[in-house]
């Protein structure tokens, strides 16, 4: 099993490296001159040339990349072109808020989706209704849902704050939005796995042993349902940590998604790359954690041939 | 027709599927492979079909080595028809009976396939003729496999196997998933087809009795090795290798008055402690040279054999030949007997 873990870590590192290379190269495809971005009103070409030299922009690609990589490994993400501070200090605060929202969003979608799935399985008559709800949630674009919730609960019912900020009261609506959008996936997984489990031979064995329905559900069925759910949670945490831009924009949630969009518009290359790297690392990391947890829960996934 | 010459097959992770196996299927003859799970008989089928290549040793078809590469395997594949175990898995549920049975014609560009004289209509006639030959006359060509029982599906599979007029028919446990009363029908069908078309037949089964009734020569396999081989009647009635004897003894009684298994402890081989198909530590993939796979010491049956000696555990017994068709791999074979039935 250790071998499987190590292999995953190695592939993860390779994946992150690949992302770094790709986004580095991408910057050179995007139109726009970083020197201009830094000094938009400079008239003197010499000033611009000076800036370029300072930023090592006139050196060959490989050299630039190597120096960037070197800095990265030392924990230095570079300096923002626009804000004259380290990229880390630009991204840092946003990261905290995005992390909080990601966590809240995942909790919401697991609870909502899991609940829907359970309902559909245990009460067959409600199944059609649950399907309809799922379909609706899947169909709604995320920003529409966010805006609707904001309008309804914020402006309409005055139940939620609308002025921005990032406290516990303000996290409710954006987390709920994420939760509702992600719920159908979990509902489907839970419903499918539970159906399969209940019809399975080992549940029949459990019934023949005279175990109660509740006991069977808790001890025998749920463990088998966890496995695919854990994989999805890992994926979601990773992707949300890359910045759920739409939700952050709608609710003015000060996360790194917003930071990334600003940086892109301002051609603030170091910050963009910083957010990309943070996102890649988050995805890889949480996928790895999800895999490990799954191996703990489901012994069949432990030994890799 | 098909030859295995010192073939070994080791999968990644060290699982030894075949260990220095030499077998011959003569043209027009029939060879049966008997073994339980982990014996390697299915691997033999896969090698014979060209689905995999041996780790060492040589596979021959019609005297020449199996070619490399899919394109060069094509003409060879046309000459091999096969019927596999699971009738519910081996037919594509989305294809009509007509498409299933005529598929070999399309793949190999044979007469009766599209583009050939007669075109589609010609194929239909061929398909109908084949289905009649396997006992499904008047079957609806547009029906789907779901309509048929296990036995019916195997008949469709047999029709598909034979439509290309192959030279060889390979059957891997074709009746194991079928009801008892249907098994004999299917086996009889295969035998008839074999005789009528003068096919070479490779028949794989776990049932020693069934094989003994169906083929000329039987090879008994255990954990990747051929432990005994000979004419079917002889191997059944007078097994020389302890494993063959154990297989023979393990078959349940014929009559309640002659109980042997459930009536106390039979003196037989010790049960298999671990999964015989599991990888063995210390064997790297590709480690096989000529001869026995390194890392497997002694006779493969020694750990269960009631007659095993120290020599059996250290040395691999070579094949003792008793005449051109009869051999077994044992230092202390069971003396010749004849089991009265």
């Amino acid at each position, binding site marked *: 099993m250790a071998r499987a873990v190590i292999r995953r870590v190695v592939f993860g590192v390779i994946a992150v490296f690949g992302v770094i290379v790709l986004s580095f190269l991408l910057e050179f495809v995007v139109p726009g001159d970083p020197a201009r971005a830094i000094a938009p009103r400079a008239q003197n070409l010499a000033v611009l040339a000076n800036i370029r030299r300072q930023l090592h922009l006139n050196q060959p690609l490989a050299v630039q990349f190597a120096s960037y990589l070197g800095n990265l490994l030392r924990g230095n993400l570079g300096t923002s072109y626009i804000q004259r501070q380290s990229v880390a200090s630009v991204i840092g605060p946003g990261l905290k808020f995005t992390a909080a929202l990601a966590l809240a969003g995942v909790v919401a979608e697991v609870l909502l989706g899991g609940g829907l799935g359970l309902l559909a399985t245990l009460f067959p008559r409600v199944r059609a209704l649950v399907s309809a709800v799922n379909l609706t949630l899947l169909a709604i674009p995320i920003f529409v849902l966010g805006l609707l919730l904001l309008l309804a609960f914020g402006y309409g019912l005055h139940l939620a704050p609308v002025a921005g900020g990032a406290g516990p009261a303000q996290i409710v609506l954006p987390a709920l939005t994420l939760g509702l959008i992600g719920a159908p996936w979990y509902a489907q997984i839970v419903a499918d796995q539970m159906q399969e489990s209940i019809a*399975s*031979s*080992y549940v*029949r*064995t*459990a*019934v*023949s*042993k*005279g*175990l*109660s329905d509740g006991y069977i559900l808790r001890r025998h069925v749920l*463990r*088998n349902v966890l496995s695919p759910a854990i994989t999805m949670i890992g994926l979601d945490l990773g992707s949300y940590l890359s910045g759920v831009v739409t939700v952050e924009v709608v609710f003015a949630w000060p996360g790194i998604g917003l930071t990334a969009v600003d940086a892109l518009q301002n051609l603030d290359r170091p910050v963009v790359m910083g957010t990309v790297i943070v996102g890649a690392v988050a995805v890889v990391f949480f996928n790895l954690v999800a895999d490990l947890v799954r191996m703990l829960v*489901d*012994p*069949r996934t432990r030994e890799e041939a | 027709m098909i030859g295995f010459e010192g073939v070994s097959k080791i999968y990644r992770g060290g699982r030894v599927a075949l260990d220095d196996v030499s077998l011959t299927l003569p043209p027009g003859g029939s060879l049966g492979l008997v073994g*339980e*799970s982990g014996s390697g008989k299915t691997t033999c089928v896969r090698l014979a079909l060209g689905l995999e290549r041996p780790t060492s040793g040589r596979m021959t078809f019609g005297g020449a080595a199996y070619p490399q590469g899919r394109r060069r395997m094509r003409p060879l594949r046309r000459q091999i028809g096969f019927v596999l175990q699971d009738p519910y898995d081996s037919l594509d549920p989305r294809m009509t009976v007509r498409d299933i049975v005529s598929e070999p014609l399309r793949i190999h560009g044979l007469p009766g396939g599209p583009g050939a004289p007669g075109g589609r209509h010609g194929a239909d006639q061929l398909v109908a003729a084949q289905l009649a030959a396997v006992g499904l006359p008047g079957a609806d060509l547009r029906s789907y496999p779901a309509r048929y*029982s*296990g036995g*019916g599906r195997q008949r469709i599979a047999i029709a598909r196997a034979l439509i290309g007029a192959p030279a060889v028919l390979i059957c891997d446990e074709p009746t194991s998933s079928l*009801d*008892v*009363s*249907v*098994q*004999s*029908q299917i086996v*009889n069908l295969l035998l*008839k087809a074999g005789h009528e078309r003068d096919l070479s037949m490779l028949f794989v089964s*776990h*049932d*020693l*009795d*069934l094989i003994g*009734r169906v083929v000329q020569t039987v090879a008994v396999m255990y954990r990747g090795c051929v432990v005994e081989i000979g004419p079917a009647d002889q191997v*059944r009635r007078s097994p020389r290798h302890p494993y063959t004897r*154990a*297989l023979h*003894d393990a*078959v*349940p*009684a*014929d*009559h*309640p*008055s*002659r*109980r042997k*298994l*459930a009536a*106390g*402890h*039979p003196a037989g*081989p010790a*049960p*298999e402690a671990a*999964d015989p198909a599991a990888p063995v530590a210390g064997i790297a993939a590709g480690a096989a040279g000529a001869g026995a796979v390194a890392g497997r010491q002694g006779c493969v049956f020694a750990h269960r054999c009631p007659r095993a000696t120290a020599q059996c555990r250290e040395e691999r017994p070579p094949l003792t030949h008793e005449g051109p068709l009869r051999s077994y791999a044992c230092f202390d074979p069971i003396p010749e007997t004849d089991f009265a*039935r």
Partner: protein
Amino acid sequence: MTAAAAAGSGPALEVTGLDVRYGPVHAVRDASLTVQAGQVVALIGETGSGKSSLALAAARLLPPAAAVTGRVAIAGTVVSELGGSEFRRTRARLVGCIAQDAMAALNPVVPVGRQVGELFAVHRGASRAEAAQAAVAALAAVEITSPAAVARLYPHQLSGGMRQRVMIAMAVALAPPLIVADEPTTALDVSTQAEILALIGDLRTRMRAGFLWITHDMGVVAELADWAAVMYAGRIVEQGPVQEIFDAPAHPYTEGLLATRRDLRSGPAGTPLFQIPGSPAAPGEVGAGCAFAPRCARASPVCASDDPALDPLGGGPDGLHLAACHHPAASPGAAVRAVPR
């Protein structure tokens, strides 16, 4: 019902007039069967015979969609009249079940020791430690060497034979008066089957339970059974003491099954196998008259119109030998003529 029967003694299983329907499909028709304490009753049949439905109905393990009518009594308790949760509380003490596919029937993510221990924890109020100990003892009782180590393993880490032993351990753990076994050895290698049969032979001398053993293998019947019941298309078509069933089968289907096995085991090599023509009737396909008539060499016009009742034959040596046939075999060994194909 006498006081003794009411007190939990009496036959291990008594089924009277059992009917099982899945919607329009009539899977079991008016079946009556008795298993005495300490007796093994073999329930013989193929696909569509209704044997699994009958056994599952006796253990009340059918899904709610199945409509079950009739009387089922286990060791005197009329379970067909008990409510759902009432039965659930006592069922593990009344009937133990051995499923066919042990890999599917065991929870893949729970160690097997815990799965066995559950029974003691839930039904005997054992603490965690006590249940674990009891589980190890139960595994030892089914002749698993190093039971403590095995108890920690997961089902996929065990061999097929070991898994089946675990299932058996679970079934006999609380020493119920009835054990229902649904083809537990069908999916096993023949030598593994031999071990399991030996184990069962051993267990039955130690236990007083009655066994309802489903199989299609007449050899297993010969090894284990005291009494045999043959099912076809949802009905019991013959039943009686096993010696009589083997020596003097009355129903042509029984004769056919026995002849098939006999021919397989001792027929001359290279000749076609004995076969019963046609395929097993699916339960939905049965019309008026005897379900076996289309396949029967002795069928006459009355067979097509009149479904024969299960009637006793003229006096056997002990117990009742019943057959549902208009033309039961007249003398011992009168076999159906082989229908060549």
